């Protein structure tokens, strides 16, 4: 992509336009939309069992309740709504389908067993209590280990066992390269199961068009186009007859970039009843049924030279994928993300991996901010510290010796992922400097005790896959993941601009940043650009907003679309002015002669010609209208990066971890709006603090979900959010439009390993090895007690 330098608005903080209605309570989230007449409210009967046969469902009492329209079971819906499955074309994946409402069997607590159709949400809730379901409970498995145990209950009998996906890889001559290492270290790392906890749970409403066969689905999703294609395909509708619209979306974090059974069902029921159908998720349903994430176990073995340089790495990853494959990613997402990203910013050239996804009787897992990356970096960054401790090297120095260096770019990692540009070493050095690393190490007492608490520093260098294009998804087998995004940039007859983007904002500020980009490229006032997205009827096709792709792919497309329409403006204006279009420039709402700026036209004057609103002719062969559509398919990925360095104090008595200082260096290439980028870094980092220190969905051994409320699933509050020192490095991509890279996930990816390593550093003298998050106070005290007992036993 040719270098673009003449930015006027790209790179500047512009305050968000969406704030004005959000701050006044005028935004329309799903449940804020005006309700159509005759609206049917849904509520779901949820399975209380992890694994059971459904023997009978008695709906009579519920049906008899005033205000209840109907009660439908899986059997009642079987003809309308068959089970659905993601389309994955990857060796080692064995797909199974997920019923929209269970038939015969339930496979996790919270699975939909029946659906109430009622006149009001209160009546629907009342009816739930009256549905009698008779179950025959069956043995269940909840953990990876139990799912893999010989003779374990099989979640899907058709598969024969619980391994739904397995993949292997090894570089040539791996064994010899591994054997050549002088020191071998091995550790098993694991992460608890977490989930997105958007403050707005999900919801959807399907609204049949009374005079046509079409249906509009309003749904709180990050992926409207993917949802439309999947539902239309699944229900046998013409895609043009289904319009998917996203209202304001109250947070996504990946949790909302899946197709859920209820989204299919509201459309099917709206067709069946000819009435609008709405479902609003409550918090309990969110925690029970929305995709969870992580619950990964990573066994990492490295062979290292005495100099601390990794000669070879061997990684075994297992993920708990729950009872059904998520749609559209399937369980391959987390597994392949973890193994593909483990080499991260380090020069690892001999690599072997194996990954397996294990079915259990728990809620499906799927994408959540960072996907496999926090796991991958917990392992490799944890290993960096262990190498240092084993060899007597400073952990920062171990990283310096292994990192991909500035002169290595562009660099292709061991599994074939191209790192276009990056600032791995500068970022590390900057982070160390910001925290005063050397001074800390010099002052750190041998026993690490300061005022009764153990002090330690943790580092995480991360790479952040962003802006994944079609090639990046294809190589991993995601057949329904377009990869591209698109825009239609229109100069309207009044000379102002409309930008239609294929994405769907969930708080990232698209309505501001995309306007900023188009205004920059078209030389118009930012206020004169309107952004429209989240509507399949208005915007061209695309992938959606997740996996740190919005600014790279959506933003890139807006730049390209603006450039295309800019060319047309120049052609028409050149004809009108009688000069070569190449002499013309855009700026100040005008198109003008570069060498004679006084000679020019307003965009409105050009638009009037384009829209045949005056008597002026168009150039020969030029069509009417003043717009351009662009489909931008970026490269496989563009790699952002950064470094987290954090100092903690660990109280050995109560087990509390206090974050004392926290430095984040981040490099997301060309920045569009610095304040919005900083907001992404803050938010992701604090989510990472939650994952590192407190968050975990807990199932008991029998698959009972133990914490489906915000009293029991703890997310950070303001008191858990430390001040962050932010360091910005801007290394534009050489592969993407304008050098933009993604920024949304690195904060989380960096935080989890950095905090784990800081606690590990603090407690290293006690013989404590930190291998699992979350690190709750009780966990820390337990680890210290076990280490003391082990030492006492050894002495």
């Amino acid at each position, binding site marked *: 992509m040719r270098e673009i330098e003449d930015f006027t608005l790209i790179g500047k903080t512009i305050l968000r336009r969406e*704030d004005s209605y959000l701050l006044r309570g005028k935004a329309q*989230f799903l*449940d804020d939309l005006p309700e159509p007449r005759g609206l049917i409210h849904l509520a779901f009967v949820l399975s209380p069992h992890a694994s059971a046969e459904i023997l009978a469902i008695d709906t009579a009492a519920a049906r008899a309740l005033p205000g209840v329209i109907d009660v439908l079971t899986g059997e009642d819906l079987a003809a309308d709504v068959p089970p659905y499955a993601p389309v994955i074309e990857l060796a080692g994946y064995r797909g199974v389908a997920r019923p929209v409402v269970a038939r015969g069997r339930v496979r996790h607590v919270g699975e939909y067993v029946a659906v109430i159709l009622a006149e009001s949400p209160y009546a629907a809730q009342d009816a739930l209590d009256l549905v009698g379901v008779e179950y025959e409970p069956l043995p269940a498995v909840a953990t990876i280990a139990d799912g893999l145990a010989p003779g374990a209950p099989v979640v899907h009998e058709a598969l024969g066992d619980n391994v739904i996906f397995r993949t292997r890889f090894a570089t040539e001559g791996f064994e010899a390269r591994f054997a050549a290492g002088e020191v071998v270290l091995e550790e098993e790392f694991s992460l608890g199961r977490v989930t997105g906890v958007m403050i707005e749970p999900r919801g959807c409403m399907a609204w049949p068009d009374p005079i046509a066969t079409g249906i509009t689905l309003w749904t709180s999703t990050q992926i409207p186009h993917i949802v439309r294609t999947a539902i239309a395909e699944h229900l046998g509708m013409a895609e043009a007859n289904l319009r998917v619209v996203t209202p*304001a979306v109250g947070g996504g974090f990946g949790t909302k970039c899946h197709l859920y059974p209820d989204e299919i069902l509201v459309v099917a029921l709206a067709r069946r009843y000819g009435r609008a159908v709405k479902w609003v998720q409550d918090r309990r349903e969110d925690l029970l049924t929305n995709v969870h994430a992580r619950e990964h176990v990573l066994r990492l073995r490295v062979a290292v030279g005495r100099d601390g340089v990794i000669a070879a790495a061997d990684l075994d990853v297992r993920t708990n994928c729950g009872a059904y494959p998520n749609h559209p990613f399937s369980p391959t997402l987390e597994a392949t993300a973890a193994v593909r990203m483990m080499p991260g910013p380090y020069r690892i050239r001999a690599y072997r991996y194996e990954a397996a996804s294990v079915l259990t009787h728990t809620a499906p897992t799927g994408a959540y901010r960072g996907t496999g990356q926090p796991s991958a970096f917990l392992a490799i960054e944890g290993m960096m510290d262990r190498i240092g401790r084993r060899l007597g090297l400073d952990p920062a120095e171990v990283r310096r010796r292994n990192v991909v260096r500035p002169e290595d770019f562009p660099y292709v990692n061991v599994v074939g992922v191209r790192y276009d540009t990056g600032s791995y070493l500068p970022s590390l050095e900057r982070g160390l400097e910001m925290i005063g690393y050397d001074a800390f190490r010099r002052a750190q007492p041998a026993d690490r005790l300061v005022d009764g608490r153990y002090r330690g520093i943790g580092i995480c260098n991360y790479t952040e896959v962003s802006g994944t294009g079609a090639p990046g998804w294809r190589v991993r087998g995601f057949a329904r993941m377009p990869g591209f995004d698109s825009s239609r940039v229109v100069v309207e007859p009044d000379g102002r601009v409309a930008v239609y983007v294929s994405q769907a904002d969930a708080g990232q500020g698209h309505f501001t940043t995309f306007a900023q980009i188009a205004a920059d490229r078209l030389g118009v006032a930012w206020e004169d650009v309107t952004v429209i997205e989240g509507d399949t009827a208005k915007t061209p096709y695309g992938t959606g907003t997740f996996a740190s792709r919005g600014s790279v792919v959506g933003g890139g497309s807006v730049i390209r679309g603006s450039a295309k329409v800019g060319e047309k403006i120049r052609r028409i204006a050149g004809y009108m002015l009688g000069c070569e279009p190449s002499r013309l420039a855009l700026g100040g709402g005008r198109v003008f002669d570069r060498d004679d700026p006084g000679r020019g036209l307003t965009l409105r004057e050009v638009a009037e010609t384009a829209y045949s609103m005056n008597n002026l002719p168009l150039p020969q062969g030029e069509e009417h209208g003043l717009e351009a559509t662009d489909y931008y398919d970026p490269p496989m990925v563009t790699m952002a990066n950064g470094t987290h360095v954090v100092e903690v104090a660990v109280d050995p008595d109560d087990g509390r971890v206090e974050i004392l200082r926290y430095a984040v260096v981040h490099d997301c290439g060309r920045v569009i709006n610095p304040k919005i980028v900083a907001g992404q870094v803050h938010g992701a980092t604090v989510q990472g603090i939650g994952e590192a220190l407190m968050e975990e969905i807990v199932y008991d051994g029998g698959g009972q979900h133990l914490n489906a409320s915000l009293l029991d699933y703890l997310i950070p509050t*303001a008191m858990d959010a430390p001040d962050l020192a932010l360091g910005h490095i801007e290394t534009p991509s050489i592969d993407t439009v304008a050098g933009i890279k993604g920024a949304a996930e690195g904060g989380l990816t960096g935080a989890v390993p950095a905090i784990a390593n800081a606690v590990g550093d603090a407690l290293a003298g006690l013989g404590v090895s930190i291998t699992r998050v979350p690190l709750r106070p009780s966990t820390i005290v337990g680890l210290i007690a076990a280490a003391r007992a082990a030492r006492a036993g050894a002495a």
Partner: protein
Amino acid sequence: MSRARVTVRLTVNGRAYVREVEPRYLLADFLRHELGLTGTHIGCEHGVCGACTVLIDGKTGRSCLQFAAALDGASITTVEGIAGEGPLHPVQEAFHEAHALQCGYCTPGFLMTTIEFLAANPDPTRDQIRQALTNNMCRCTGYLNIIEAVEDAARRLRAQEGGA
């Protein structure tokens, strides 16, 4: 199970309303669905997240934990009532300028908390702000820009007070 409706009289954002509702009808649902004031959002319905926080007789309360009928006679302020159609309130301005909201779903609750907090603590420390903000949860911002916004709002309100 009684489905009898009771009369509830509430003043909301300065305007008097009389409605007949079931006693079990939650204030959050009353505001959103009876009065169409959908700026008050529901996030958990068990009192933890704070998205539904409104001012009830000047004090923050969870509208998901209040029965509208039980508040008969009370005066409620929702996000729609902070500035009405006029210029943004200083707290809203401060949130805007600090980029203290992303998805904005939790924001109405945070505004209520901030207004109540700064009325009682016009010149708070950052620690006091953090403590006060435990009244609400945000999953997008990591709170840091909200803390900045509260500090800035405090300055704005003090200046306004001083200038008045």
